């Protein structure tokens, strides 16, 4: 089922006569200007292929649908798949189970839905605790841990440098040096309070 093409302001349906028009069109509901650009995909009534029924007993059937004809094997596990179960990802044919396991193990970059930004996490861990001063005692070593542990972890799928990792390491080392100096200074201070 397709969605009706609606006005983005009032959700009033925009009639097909108003699609792909060069002149200004106004929404029948709220009178705001609307521009609808439709593409040939709008003619399609369904999104994917339907499975074909087995024509003879000698034909291979789908591993998941015994009554459907297999059209392709899974490139990961080799199971036969019908048109419904075949998921074409980046030129590879996968069954739903392999697709799911690939998602879980983050092996399918093209189907990845989220990714932690370890460099930003390290930088935040290095910088934010300093605002409250004493949490830096925990924050700085934690940031260093993230930098070392996640240095080779994949960053964003978008273009991104490792500058945040470098900055996090720099801040964390500076904080640790500051903390060590502070402790040293306290220990080495003339014992005014102790003497009194």
């Amino acid at each position, binding site marked *: 089922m397709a969605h009706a093409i*609606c006005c*983005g*302001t009032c959700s009033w*349906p925009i009639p*097909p006569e108003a699609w792909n028009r060069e002149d200004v069109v106004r929404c029948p509901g709220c009178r705001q200007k*609307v521009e609808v650009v439709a593409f040939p995909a709008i003619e*399609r009534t369904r999104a994917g292929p339907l499975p074909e029924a087995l024509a003879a007993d000698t034909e291979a059937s789908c591993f998941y649908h015994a009554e459907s004809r297999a059209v392709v094997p899974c490139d990961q596990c080799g199971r036969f798949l019908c048109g419904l179960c075949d998921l074409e990802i980046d030129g590879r044919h996968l069954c739903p189970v392999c697709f799911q396991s690939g998602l879980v193990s983050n092996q399918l970059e093209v189907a990845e839905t*989220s990714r932690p930004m370890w460099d930003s996490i390290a930088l935040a861990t290095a910088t934010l605790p300093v605002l409250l001063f004493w949490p830096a005692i925990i924050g700085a070593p934690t940031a260093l841990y993230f930098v070392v542990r996640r240095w080779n972890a994949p960053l964003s799928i*978008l273009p991104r440098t490792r500058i945040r990792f470098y900055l996090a390491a720099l801040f964390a080392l500076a904080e640790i040096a500051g903390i060590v100096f502070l402790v040293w200074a306290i220990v080495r201070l003339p014992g005014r309070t102790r003497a009194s």
Partner: protein
Amino acid sequence: MPKRTSIYRRLTGRKRTLAGYSQLWLAPDHILLVKSSRLVEHYQRFALADIQSLVITTVVDRTPLEIGAAGAAILWTLIALTVTSLFGKIFFVVTGAIGIALVVIDLARGPRCRCHLYTAVSRELLAPVGRVRTAQKLLIELRKAIEAIQGALPADRIPLETQRPVLPFDAPPPEVPQPPGYLPELLFGLFLANAALLLVDIRFPHAQISNALFTTVFGEIVIIIFALMRRPGRDPRRIIYGVMIFSIVCIGWDAFDLGRSFFEVVTEAARRGNSIAYDTSLNVWGQRRALFAAGWRIAAGGFGLLASYMER
């Protein structure tokens, strides 16, 4: 190691919010909508072959509001003429100038709009496209990319709405359940930890343990705000949020009580003619008040943990 080149080309700038940003990128065969909370990126891909339409709608004109905001900012700046202190003059001029600059930048960016992308199974608001100028640029780029794959749709082939099976436009989308998370449990654990700190401070008043409370109590407030903001549509539990509201009242009372105690100590010292150094510890608070602060934290923390376990 060969340098890895990205398949993505930037389509729009970043639409920034307090919680993160969103941005559109173009790949050879799909559009990528990135929603980032700064620490985690979420990706939504729309295959160019599946995009049915793009709809750009202008939103209600805000020019009168912007003119009003500019007038208010100018008036605010003019207050600088009435004050005598240098700090006051600088404060009103700088804050007023920032206000005026924001309005001018907003006007310069042009009229606002909303852009929706339709596929056979989804209708997605493209949040990074918030201005008509950006939308027109995006449309030119996307039209080229989509028509390279799908071809153009001639006017005589536009299907009549009556022939298309459509969802009613006001049909609510199916709800996507989200895990409630463990922020409330973390908060109640922090209550118990802070109560322990308070009790240690009462027992060992010279250990300066209570200085940590200035940070951890601030942490309590931040976690409560985040927990209440994240709750809608995510966490159906009720009792624990009632406990949080109760905690806000108690934290407010603690802050008021601490401020009053400090004021009393200072005025008493002034009355006697003593000079006292500013003391950041809770020693000015008194044992009774510290016991109250520890007591309600133990009650709220314990009850909250129990309730969150029972309600989960």
